[in-house]
C-alpha cells in the first residue's frame, strides 16, 4: 500500500488476513480490544464502547501504515478502557460500602439487575 493514500480510504478487504503491510515500523500497538469487550460486558458500558471504537482506529490506521496514528489511537483506547474499568470497580466498591453501612435491611429495597 502506498503512503500517499488519503486517510479516509478505509482499507476494506485490501489486507489479506495476517499479512504485514508495507511501511510499518514495528509490531502493531496494543489495541485493547479484548479489554474493552470485557469492560463492555462487565462494567460501565459507554467507556467500553469507546474502547472498541478506538481499537477499530488502531487496526485500520496500522493497516494503512499510519503507525503514529495507530499509537495515538492505542493510547486513547487504553485510556477509555481504564476509565471504564476503574469506574466499574468504583461502583462495585461503593455499592458494597453502602451495603455494609446500611446493613442488610437497607439494601433489601433495591432489586438487583
Amino acid at each position: 500500500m502506498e503512503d500517499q493514500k488519503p486517510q479516509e480510504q478505509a482499507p476494506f478487504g485490501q489486507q489479506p488476513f495476517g499479512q504485514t503491510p508495507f511501511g510499518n515500523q514495528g509490531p502493531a500497538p496494543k489495541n485493547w480490544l479484548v479489554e474493552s469487550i470485557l469492560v463492555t460486558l462487565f462494567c460501565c458500558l459507554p467507556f467500553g464502547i469507546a474502547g472498541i471504537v478506538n481499537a477499530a482506529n488502531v487496526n485500520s490506521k496500522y493497516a494503512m501504515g499510519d503507525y503514529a496514528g495507530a499509537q495515538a489511537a492505542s493510547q486513547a483506547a487504553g485510556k477509555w478502557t481504564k476509565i471504564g474499568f476503574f469506574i466499574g470497580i468504583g461502583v462495585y466498591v461503593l455499592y458494597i460500602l453502602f451495603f455494609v453501612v446500611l446493613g442488610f435491611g437497607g439494601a433489601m429495597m433495591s432489586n438487583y439487575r
Partner: protein
Amino acid sequence: MKLTYILEIIIGLAFVIIYYNFNPEMYNFFPECPFHKYLHLDCPGCGSQRAIHALLHLDIQKAAGYNLLLVRSLPLLITQLAFKIYSFSTKKNLVMRFWYNPNTPKVIFAIVMIFWIARNLPYTPFNYLAA
C-alpha cells in the same frame, strides 16, 4: 509482574466462589448496573452477574437467557485466555492475529450496538434478549 498475576488469580477465585455460592437474583449485595438503575434500560452488560452464576452452575441455557452476548463471546474469550497462558508459560509473545484484523473491531462494535438496541425493544422476538 508475577505478584500481580498471583493477586489476579486470588481475586478471580474469590469472585468465582462468591458468584457460585450466591445467586444474584436472591441476594442484593450485588451492585446494580447504574445504566439500568437510572434509565431503566438494559445495557450490553446487563444480566452478566446472573449469567455468570448460571454458567458456574453449568446452566448455559439459563445464562444465555440473561445475557446472550456474554455467552456468545465466551469461546473467543476462552481462546484468548489460552493464548495468554501459553505465551506466559513459554515466554513467547503469542497474540491472536484475529484481534488485529482491521474488520474485527468494526464487526464487534456493530454486534454490540445491535444487541444493545434489540434487547430494549419490547416486541416478541427481541424481548427474549432482555436481561
